[in-house]
């Protein structure tokens, strides 16, 4: 039984290491915040399926915090960001939020990027009275569920119904479309809810959605479904999805001879789409987003971001930056780092200039924010419409 002795010793050694580790982790995390800093938690998708969205948002957020700290901090204190990975999974998002709240004692949580992961952490945050600011979760259910506004949950981007509505009207009014195909990412809440809104609004305005098709995140080959979509011969094809898949879809659609206008949403807002699809394939496509990069007021943000990271920001980075701006402003107005006061200050946000425009928080904790429609044309993006929403 020398075998078992060895096993026991090894197991003992491992257990010892782990206990040591837990003590260290406990010490590192359990520290009370230093009095000259305000701890903010960042719960993002840093590994796993949607890591590129989480990481991009985090880059934007970090820039906004850095700018605030360089300008002397907020209320005489520096903001320190505690980053935790949620592995792109809802249950891990709860773990991450719990860690931020109980171990790191953060005053506010920013993130995650994806709707489901924000919804997952909402209860923990609410139970502990810690506000959550979601930078890019656009589903209405994030802040309002069963007609109830969630007291501690906010977002800093516009919501799906707004975009779906804008694009449906654009298709009918400007493109004179009568029929449409809706091609959604079935693994994403964002895509599904936009597809549904578009269908409702498009049909309410007299159009007809003649076919609905779906794909899944990380798919490479879309030709089978596109071949089917081609047979529908619709006037427009609406593809509310994220840029990685969109680039491939546009490329493969054009290769199969689909020449109709392709419509999309803010998930398209990344220069990678043009890189993947190619400039020619991307002609005759339109998408709604938060800002036009030609807009003078966003130039400052784009320059600062490019200087910091050596690459241009995409829409996730821009929204992360907006969230950072919003929280800095809110903490300033709260005049304290008490989470409940910060929450009230976020709710009272009014006509705040952030990276991509001006936002005012409405009573449902959704910002009232402009939307623009851009056309991809010969490698350039041309603004074809700017829509200011009305307050509810």
């Amino acid at each position: 039984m020398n075998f078992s002795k060895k096993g026991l010793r090894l197991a003992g050694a491992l257990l010892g290491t782990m206990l040591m580790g837990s003590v260290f982790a406990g010490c590192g995390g359990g520290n009370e915040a230093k009095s000259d800093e305000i701890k903010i938690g960042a719960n993002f998708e840093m590994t796993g399926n949607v890591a590129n969205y989480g990481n991009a948002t985090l880059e934007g957020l970090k820039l906004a915090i850095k700018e605030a700290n360089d300008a002397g901090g907020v209320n005489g204190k520096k903001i320190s960001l505690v980053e935790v990975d949620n592995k792109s999974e809802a249950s891990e998002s709860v773990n991450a939020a719990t860690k931020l709240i109980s171990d790191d004692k953060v005053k506010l949580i920013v993130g995650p990027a994806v709707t489901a992961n924000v919804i997952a952490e909402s209860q923990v945050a609410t139970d502990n009275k810690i506000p959550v600011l979601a930078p890019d979760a656009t589903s209405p259910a994030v802040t309002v569920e069963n007609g109830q506004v969630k007291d501690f949950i906010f977002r800093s981007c516009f919501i799906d119904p707004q975009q779906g509505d804008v694009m449906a009207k654009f298709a009918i009014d400007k493109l004179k479309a009568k029929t449409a195909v809706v091609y959604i990412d079935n693994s994403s809440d964002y895509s599904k809810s936009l597809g549904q809104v578009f269908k409702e609004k498009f049909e309410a305005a007299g159009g007809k959605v003649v076919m609905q098709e779906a794909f899944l995140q990380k798919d490479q080959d879309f030709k089978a479904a596109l071949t089917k979509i081609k047979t529908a011969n619709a006037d427009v094809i609406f593809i509310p999805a994220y840029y990685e898949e969109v680039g491939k879809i546009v490329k493969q659609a054009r290769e199969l001879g689909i020449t109709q206008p392709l419509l999309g949403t803010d998930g398209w807002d990344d220069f990678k789409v043009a890189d993947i699809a190619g400039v020619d394939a991307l002609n005759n496509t339109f998408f709604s987003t938060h800002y036009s990069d030609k807009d003078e007021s966003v130039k400052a943000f784009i320059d600062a971001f490019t200087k910091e990271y050596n690459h241009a920001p995409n829409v996730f980075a821009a929204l992360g930056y907006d969230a950072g701006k919003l929280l800095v402003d809110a903490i300033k107005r709260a005049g304290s780092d008490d989470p409940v006061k910060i929450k009230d200050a976020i709710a009272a946000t009014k006509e705040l200039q952030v990276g991509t425009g001006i936002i005012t928080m409405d009573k449902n904790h959704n910002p009232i924010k402009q939307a623009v429609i851009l056309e991809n044309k010969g490698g350039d993006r041309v603004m074809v419409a700017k829509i200011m929403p009305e307050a509810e």
Partner: protein
Amino acid sequence: MNLVRRNDLVMLVFGLVLFAVLQGLMEEGIIGSFWKLNLMLIGINIIMSVSLNLINGYTGQFSLGHAGFMAVGAYVGVVLTTNFHLPFLAALLAGGAAAGLLGFLIGLPTLRLRGDYLAIATLGLGEIIRIVIMNIEYVGGAAGFRNIPHYTNFAWVFFVMLFALFFIKNFVNSSHGRACIAIRENEIAAEAMGVNTTKYKVMAFTIGAAFAGVAGGLFAHNYYIISPASFTFMQSFIFLIMVVLGGLGSITGGIAGAFFVTFISAALANWPEYRMIIFALLLILLMFYRPQGLFGYVEITNMGIFRKILKRGGAA
């Protein structure tokens, strides 16, 4: 028989003391919410790894679809509690029964396959389960099932885990369990000795699946939301890693593996960019130095202090 019972009693007392200590530490706030959550996760993962160990370690059938059964138990459970307002225990049992039934129906034809072929078939079945759930709008599709009541607490996890451990331990030590081990050692010889191999393989598979379903129910009622993304084949890999790291064919090993993997993942939470890299390296290094897992076939009850107690029992 005397030996087994005495052993059970010692472990039961040990379990109760452990529970009292941990619960006390939690109530005193010495174990904070984050580590409390992780202790619960460890408990759930222990059920998963020990039940998978019954299939992979004791019966020698290479299953890679355990996350699928967990998903079945989780979804059946949350539908019953959220939409039909059934009590938690009933939902857990129904989830376990549904997963077990599915395990039985799937196991019957597929367990004829051997080795890697069985591995890929069960992996495929796990993925099929996940994809089917993803396409059922009634349970929220890919976006997930929301507004799940928060029923799971440390006591639930701990006592269900304790039950699972005792059940599986006693199953393994019964004549059924011996038949399973005979199949692992040599299927043809076992068959020749009159063991109904199909029956025992399916039995082990069904029990393993049922416990995975119960663990799924515990998991689901702890997180307010569940989505099919939590039950991918990657997750099945993680459960397999727990089993192999701890030791195939050892209940102690299953516990140690679940503890180790969950703990490492939580302890590295502050270093997200390195976490998976460190985890991967640890995995490879551990396999180098302990290819048979931390415990191999050995149980903690056969070691050190426990051996002394058992010796007395054995002599009697």
